[in-house]
């Protein structure tokens, strides 16, 4: 009698069932994304936030949950994870971001929520009270700086201003910097050279930390009277006289080896620890850096704030960050996300940030309340107030992530600096690679 295996699990059935289960599992995120937002009992109570790992401690998280009446689900910021969540249409309710760099890219792809209707209804976040810096979060479909608002800066700074250590200046016998008149970039480089301390081919104290990113080239070019990114945002031009001047300055800076550069990056990853350890005399950082300086009384005593230098005759003092939050278009709990906005940007957290000296407040009405207790705070406030009229938003292209364009600079410039390639050739290489990248992006965005 033939043996029947009916009812038992044969190989084919098992493999078919496994494949089905695996495909179902793979399809689940898509199904989840198709569920209407906010209708589930849990989705209304959970606020999913993608932020820095140390954005809030346990007490801070409890405060958010208690104040907003939600369960906070915190996801550590990771751009790869964010992209995956956005593309599966299952994003967090709030995402931390750099308005100046990221807003056009995400807005052009229809991934951000237009916040204008929320602002129109809000009692605490009124557009008339928002600092101009928040324009970095606006995008009109073609260009950054105008159109609907897609996010809000928690604070902002004019990021090409200078913080410097008076003790290193005094040791080198140099006068302190003017609090009103900007240095020229050449003067700044010269001072950087004189402040640099070396031993056996190693830099013991960096004289100056400056530039190397696309935004810094955009700023220098603008200061020289030109523009790096074309009006239609679809191409760059490093070959213009102004952009070449900016390139040449940076090549001279890197060759002088007076500070971290694309050829010799800072091992600390950023200027903060190096400056604190008395291994850097001048850092190009905005008002927010005062938060670091103020944490150490001795450091605060020897630190000063100064205006942004200029490469040409135009005084431009841009914002490169505008760090804040945005709400993805497919977020599940937009109402709670907006409640967070109102509390975080105008409530207790905003006041606490203001007291810490971490940048200028996002609401103009809060600016007079910037701390002015210590000598440094008073000095920084005075310098900052005089710098504000020169604030500017330098629009970045929506067609490529700024990191992609920075990666091209990192690829092209070190070799060019080491080999002494002519600036014209460097400009051509940058134009060619970046414009190829932008063209691809333009085709995708349409």
């Amino acid at each position: 009698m033939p043996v029947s295996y009916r009812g038992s699990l044969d190989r084919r059935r098992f493999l078919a069932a496994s494949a089905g289960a695996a495909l179902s599992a793979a399809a689940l995120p898509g199904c989840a994304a198709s569920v209407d937002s906010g209708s589930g009992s849990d989705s209304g109570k959970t606020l999913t936030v993608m932020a820095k790992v140390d954005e809030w401690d346990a007490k801070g998280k409890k405060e958010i949950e208690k104040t907003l009446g939600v369960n906070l689900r915190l996801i550590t910021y990771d751009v790869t994870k964010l992209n995956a969540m956005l593309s599966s249409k299952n994003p967090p309710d709030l995402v931390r971001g750099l308005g100046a760099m990221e807003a056009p890219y995400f807005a052009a792809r229809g991934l951000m929520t237009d916040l204008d209707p929320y602002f129109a209804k809000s009692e605490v976040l009124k557009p008339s009270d928002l600092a101009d810096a928040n324009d970095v979060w606006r995008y009109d479909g073609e260009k950054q700086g105008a159109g609907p608002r897609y996010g809000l800066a928690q604070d902002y700074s004019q990021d090409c201003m200078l913080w410097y250590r008076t003790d290193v200046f005094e040791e080198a016998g140099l006068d302190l910097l003017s609090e009103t008149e900007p240095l020229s970039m050449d003067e700044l480089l010269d001072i950087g050279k004189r402040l640099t301390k070396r031993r056996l081919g190693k830099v013991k104290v960096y004289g100056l930390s400056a530039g190397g990113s696309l935004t810094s080239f955009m700023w220098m070019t603008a200061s020289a009277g030109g523009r790096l990114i074309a009006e239609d945002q679809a191409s760059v031009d490093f070959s213009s006289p102004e952009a070449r001047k900016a390139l040449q300055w940076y090549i001279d800076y890197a060759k002088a080896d007076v500070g971290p550069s694309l050829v010799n990056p800072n091992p600390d990853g950023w200027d903060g620890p190096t400056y604190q350890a008395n291994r850097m005399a001048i850092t190009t950082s905005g008002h927010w850096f005062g938060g670091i300086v103020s944490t150490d009384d001795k450091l605060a005593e020897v630190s000063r704030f100064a205006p942004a230098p200029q490469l040409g005759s135009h005084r431009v003092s841009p914002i490169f960050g505008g760090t804040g939050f945005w709400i993805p278009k497919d977020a599940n709990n937009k109402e709670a996300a907006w409640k967070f906005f109102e509390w975080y940007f105008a409530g207790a957290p905003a006041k606490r940030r203001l007291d810490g000296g971490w940048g200028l407040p996002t609401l103009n009405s809060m600016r007079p309340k910037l701390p002015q207790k210590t000598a440094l705070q008073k000095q920084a406030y005075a310098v900052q107030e005089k710098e504000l009229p020169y604030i500017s938003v330098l629009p970045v292209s929506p067609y490529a992530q700024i990191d992609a364009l920075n990666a091209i600079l990192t690829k092209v410039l070190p070799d060019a600096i080491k080999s002494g390639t002519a600036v014209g050739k460097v400009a051509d290489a940058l134009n060619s690679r970046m414009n190829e990248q932008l063209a691809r992006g333009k085709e995708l965005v349409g």
Partner: protein
Amino acid sequence: MSTGQLTGPHAPASARAADRGTSGRRARVTLSRRTRRDRAFYVFLGPWILGFLGLTAYPLGYALWLSFTNSDGLSPNTRFIGLANYREVFTDPDTLASLGRTGLFTAITVPLTIIAGLFLAVLVNQPIRARGLFRTLLYLPAVVPPVGAALTFKLIFDRDSGAANGVLDLLNVNGVAWLADPYARYVLIMLTLWGTGNVMVISLAGLQDIPRELHDAALMDGASWWQSFTRITLPLLSPVLFFQVVTGIIGALQTFLPLLIALDPTPKGVGSVPESNNLIMINVFAQFFANSRYGYASALLWVLFLFIMLVTYAVFRLSKGAVFYSVEPEQAKDKATSRKTGGK
């Protein structure tokens, strides 16, 4: 013998009927056992199959589909572009250069790692005092997570504040920018060799499996240490070494360490990887997450996947006759048995 004891065709009908009942029960018992065994097999295999389908087969298929598109993962106007990404893989000078660098890196590090690991294994296989301590110490770096090892190397080899230049400083020698070109590649090779303990442990296990009598017999026949090593140890260790060559090549082709010793190991910082360490996986990572070229990066991954398959196949072919198994592999043994029995 009573008829009651007979079974089979010559047994009386009643006995045959009784026998059918017994064998039926036996069949049911056997079936039930077999079913149980099958079920156990699939239950144990199930998680792997599900994992393979969900985490390997599906992503591979999805990446294959992506590789024929211009997708950036987020934009609305993604479209099918045929083989354009693959054509670019084989014409883009940056990609070809990174493939070349990866090949060179593999050609250098795999033999170095295996030779160094074998050398250490032979050393700690000697009857020396505190042998266990030495084995532990030599294996310790392999236990350190790659991220930790990379961070340590980053601190040691920093130009301005690293210990390596501190030593040069003591000798009154100018410091070197270790983490920049052209020195960065040497730091990467050193970091790779740092994990030699793994090879050592596997080789040591292989060495301890070689019967001591063979060496004793060779010694009595007047063989030198070197002759004993090359004629007995190496041939008997060859399956272990072969395994390490294959896995070493695959691992080296997929090396991702340069990003860990970069100053900012994120999509933003991937550009800071020095050109000499810009291996193929760094290029893939940059294309995916810095340049948002999901389609092109997927094509790169598929080319790398096929390349690894090809290299592995080539290594298997080339190793024929060079790898000696003290026990025949199962398949070969089955065939030999089948030949001996004439296929009966």
